[in-house]
């Protein structure tokens, strides 16, 4: 499948997850997206899957403590300043699960976009807003680039006999990673300008045509959104 219809299909699934009203519908969409993400190589998908599942879990766990909805109390806790009475109701759990699944589904759709799509061909095939699409493709590359830089940092430290372990050890890498990515961004911007980026009159490589599968993906995407609005 070409990257443009694939990106539209993923966007449609994410939209359907946001539009759907039932937990089971959102869970089904998240499951489909999870299966899609599992097609990516194990080493690359780990970070994305952990991020998507952890953020969904965080929403599920935190929602009951920051909202006061429902009357079927499951657990009553102390009163905390600002937050008020810490209690957990069945309704809060239901909303937490629903919003957590929604977030997971959207994050998994992004993960599938980042892991499985050929961003070069996506930039090539989109006939409008080339600058925005290129910026999006570069931003998407930030995650694997940061991942590679982090691996390089860990390896450089291990090369000195310094082991990086635990959340605290990894957190210490954040500042150098950020500084490194800023340096890299500046160098890249300079290289792009020297190769004529932003000059008027740019052309494009011939775009590959859309096949039957690409058109089918577009229809499935539209149907998914419609079903999300009407029935899910």
């Amino acid at each position: 499948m070409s990257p443009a219809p694939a990106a539209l299909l993923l966007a449609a699934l994410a939209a359907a997850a946001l539009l759907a009203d039932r937990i089971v519908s959102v869970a089904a969409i998240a499951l489909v997206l999870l299966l899609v993400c599992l097609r990516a190589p194990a080493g690359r998908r780990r970070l994305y899957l952990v991020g998507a599942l952890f953020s969904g879990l965080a929403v599920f766990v935190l929602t009951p403590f920051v909202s006061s909805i429902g009357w079927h109390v499951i657990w009553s806790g102390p009163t905390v300043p600002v937050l008020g009475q810490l209690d957990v109701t069945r309704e809060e759990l239901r909303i937490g699960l629903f919003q957590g699944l929604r977030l997971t589904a959207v994050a998994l759709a992004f993960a599938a976009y980042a892991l499985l799509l050929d961003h070069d061909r996506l930039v090539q095939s989109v006939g409008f807003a080339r600058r925005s699409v290129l910026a999006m493709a570069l931003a998407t590359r930030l995650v694997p680039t940061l991942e590679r830089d982090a691996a390089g940092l860990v390896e450089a430290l291990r090369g000195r006999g310094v082991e990086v372990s635990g959340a605290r050890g990894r957190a210490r890498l954040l500042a150098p990673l950020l500084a490194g990515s800023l340096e890299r961004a500046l160098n890249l911007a300079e290289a792009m300008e020297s190769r004529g980026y932003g000059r008027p009159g740019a052309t494009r490589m011939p775009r590959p045509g859309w096949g039957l599968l690409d058109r089918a993906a577009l229809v499935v995407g539209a149907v998914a959104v419609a079903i999300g609005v009407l029935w899910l």
Partner: protein
Amino acid sequence: MALATVRQLAFTYPGEHEALRGVSLELEPGEVVALLGPSGGGKSTLLRALAGLVPHFHGGRFSGSVEVAGLDTRRVHPAELAGTVATLFQDPEDQVVFTRVSNEVAFGLENLGTPPPEILPRAARALAAVGADHLAERPVAELSGGELQRVCLASVLALEPRLLLLDEPTSQLDPEGAATAIELARESGAAVVVSEQRPERVLEACDRVLFVADGRIQEGDPPDAWLPREAVLPAAEPSGPAVCRLEDVSFAYHATPVVQRASLRVGRGEIVALVGPNGSGKTTLAKLATGLLEPQSGSVAREGRACYLSQDPGRYLVKERADEEVALAVGGDLVRAGAALAEVGLAGFEDRHPRDLSSGERERLALAAVLVAEPDLLVLDEPTRGVDPPRKDELAALLRDQSPGRATLVVTNDLVFASEVADRVVSTAPERERALA
């Protein structure tokens, strides 16, 4: 008529000292000019001025004038100069825009408004010219440093510029790749200005040499340290008790075998240079020797502590003070860190932020960060990348001074450095090294 004219150029980066002062020169169409000189002496800034990136991209104080093909670089933006001028930057990893090789090479052609049917054939021709046509559909993230440098060279050659600016274009290339790159630049018909730290690669191919130091073009011949040297690879027998022994090791990344049934021994007191073509598994072998990778078959035996200095180590610094960075490997011992900094010529830099240092200083800081641990096995991966000849001599002297106490493995494409520092040379392609010798 000159293709480019620089008149009394002076430039200061924002908040820094003067990088160029009173530089004047003319470049004729088709001539090849080699820029030699110490790191931080102004070579890269001069190249950026010729591309219009100084002052447009960097800001700073600019006086004098630079004209390229009749265009005043103060009035014309770098993107508009693109095509007339093409620049290959020092670090190939920081200039890649796309994820696939063919798209990367096509990017500049698209920006210049090349008719669409011509874009892919021109990109393919440029890749074929640098011997990288087989990489066209590969993701750039999977390329070795040398392969990536070839792709970046193809990206600028595809533009068919009138002025080609090459900032250390061969720093990661093996000797054949480096010779090919310089020859291709010469054959392109463009005027070429090439900044190099390995003079033997460019002096034969260039029409004249400019020595840039302290922001000025120095008159007369370059100092002796910059004259080409002959690489006479030492062929001693292995010596000293083995600190590291690899027997029949194999390693593959995903399904791609990189090292197959390789053996290597490094003894205490000897310096071994590991040479070989780009992509032949030198770095992987070095990581296997240090324990950063585990072999998928075969065995590795090591004694004592092993330290590994990666390629481009200046990128991988984590602390906010130079002495703390070095002290990481010795449990925060700042006294030992200070001594190690002094050993690499960075005394007085203890409280400086590593990212405020020049690239050459960062590399030395990273070297101090491994030397401080006094390892039994020291592995250095391309330690002369971007290092000027006098600094290479200093590095070779330092490694030789300390070699009796440890086993040292140096991975390098710099055969001159290998011949000067090593007791013996091991190649991942022995036939090739015999031919080169």
